[in-house]
């Protein structure tokens, strides 16, 4: 009989629980002040966005430059719903609706565009994200170019922790399933994947929709944390922010995305006053990493607990 959890999974769960308790205690003790709670929020949003983008770009190999577009759908949906219904129930409805609408947009955008490959796909997703941004800018319900003001704040550390952990676990489970392997096969060799009976269009759209779903959650949390939404926030540069995290951490490495997400949020906080310097560092990092380590810092490897383990971890049925 197999065990329900591998040792690695168990350790991960324990780590997640410990992270929750430690941060909660630090907040209660006011060591993590309100100012640093913003960093904490950024870390969690970074992780959610990067892990979901990694599913699309790192695992399925579909280069997307429009992740911020889906994020904005989640953000505005949640924002509008919680403004109308400022309760926890409204907040949760907002998150779910935001995620579902973003996933729907992912399907609608994915079906036509995912026939394209590589750089053409990148530019088409960029185009769609810009179209979403411009639509948001022209609508009344979203507050137009002026933005949506006064989104009530419901996010706190337990919520952030919950959604971040949820995203990591679900995406990780997915890529370790047969459906996830079908997506990875598309990245490796699309023609061979088709010859092995994998409906490549279906799985590309699926990965895109799942990625958009979690980006919707990320956006909803953003809305609830930062109080104020404007269309320009979710432009091309925002998509690039998350791409940088995925690339730095490694295309196809979830732990890489987590570590890089934390790292860049911290860099952000430290350099909050110096936008230009921060962006120069981002850009230089991107170029240097690509030149010297095009697969990203972690490549497609995961950070595992090798020392505690006897067998290689990729086979789950040991």
């Amino acid at each position: 009989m197999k065990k329900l959890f591998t040792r690695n999974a168990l350790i991960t769960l324990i780590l997640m629980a410990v992270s929750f308790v430690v941060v909660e205690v630090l907040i209660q003790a006011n060591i993590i002040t309100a100012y640093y709670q913003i960093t904490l929020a950024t870390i969690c949003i970074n992780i959610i966005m990067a892990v979901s983008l990694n599913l699309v770009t790192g695992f399925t190999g579909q280069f997307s430059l429009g992740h911020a577009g889906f994020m904005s759908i989640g953000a505005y949906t949640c924002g509008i719903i919680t403004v109308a219904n400022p309760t926890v129930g409204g907040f949760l409805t907002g998150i779910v609706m935001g995620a579902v609408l973003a996933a729907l947009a992912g399907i609608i955008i994915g079906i036509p565009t995912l026939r394209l490959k590589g750089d053409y796909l990148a530019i088409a997703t960029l185009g769609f994200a810009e179209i979403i941004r411009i639509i948001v800018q022209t609508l009344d319900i979203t507050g137009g170019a002026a933005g949506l003001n006064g989104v009530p704040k419901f996010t706190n550390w337990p919520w952030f922790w919950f959604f971040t952990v949820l995203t990591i676990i679900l995406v990780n489970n997915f890529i370790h399933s047969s459906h996830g392997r079908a997506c990875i096969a598309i990245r490796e060799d699309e023609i061979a994947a088709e010859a092995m009976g994998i409906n490549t269009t279906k799985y590309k759209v699926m990965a895109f929709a799942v990625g958009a779903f979690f980006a919707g959650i990320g956006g909803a949390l953003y809305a609830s944390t930062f109080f104020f939404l404007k269309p320009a926030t979710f432009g091309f540069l925002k998509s690039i922010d998350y791409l940088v995290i995925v690339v730095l951490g490694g295309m196809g490495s979830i732990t890489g995305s987590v570590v890089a997400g934390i790292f860049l949020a911290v860099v952000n906080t430290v350099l909050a006053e110096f936008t230009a310097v921060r962006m120069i560092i981002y850009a230089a990092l991107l170029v240097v990493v690509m030149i010297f380590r095009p697969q990203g810092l972690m490549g497609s490897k995961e950070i595992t607990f090798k020392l505690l383990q006897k067998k290689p971890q990729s086979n789950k049925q040991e």
Partner: protein
Amino acid sequence: MQQIVNGISLGSIYALIALGYTMVYGIIKLINFAHGDIYMIGAYTGFAVVTYTNLGFFPALIIAMIACSALGVVTEKVAYKPLRSASRIAVLITAIGVSLLMEYVMMFFVTADVRSYPDVLSNASFEIGGVIIKMQQIYILITTVLLMVFLQYIVHRTKVGKAMRAVSIDRDAAELMGIKVDQTISYTFAIGSALAGAAGVLVGIYYNSINPLMGIMPGLKAFVAAVLGGIGSIPGAMIGGMSIGVIENMVSGYGGSLIKDAVVFAILIIVLLVKPSGILGKNTREKV
């Protein structure tokens, strides 16, 4: 009519930028995201020249073109050349990185403030049958046409041009035939960047304002123009640029100035889906 006239002058600027995209894509299959920023730097170089040296329009144009072409070559050598054998995605990400680097290094040095160009070309305008034409628009059109004729000459009548065409068809075969591939790629970047630099100066004069992020949107739109015309095709870039310019002006002329960018991107997506090879491009497919 007025929209068409305005569209053509805007379109010729897009066409100039699109040429650089198309040439670079043709030769190394890279969407050079940094191209829009070369254009921005061209605008700043021109600005610096006319503001601080009192030289006229043409010296400014030439100096900006030379500066940009040097910058283009250096960028290629430093950032793209080490990645010749890497995946196209890796090179594309690098290009995005280079683009951000240029934008924010500029922002660091010249600040994010919007600058305005001094008047170096006549502000005069005249009217033909109810259509107002500015002298500046005529200058833009003339400069663009001259540069394009010059480019056609280089590509079709010179040895460098022949090498470029050879490398874009088959890099390995070209190399075996004794063509210096690296040198040819450098020339391509030099010429493409020079055209972007010229476009930068023209835009600075025409719109009278420049800032470090000005390259993003025109860069993207010029890329759309290149795709529309057929990427890799020089006449295609001209046709695409003009079309995008005119369409954009028509849309804003009929009250859609808020959505004009969305229309351009919609065109991109439709072209990519219906005829990814564009108006004048060729079809290719993967060998199994």
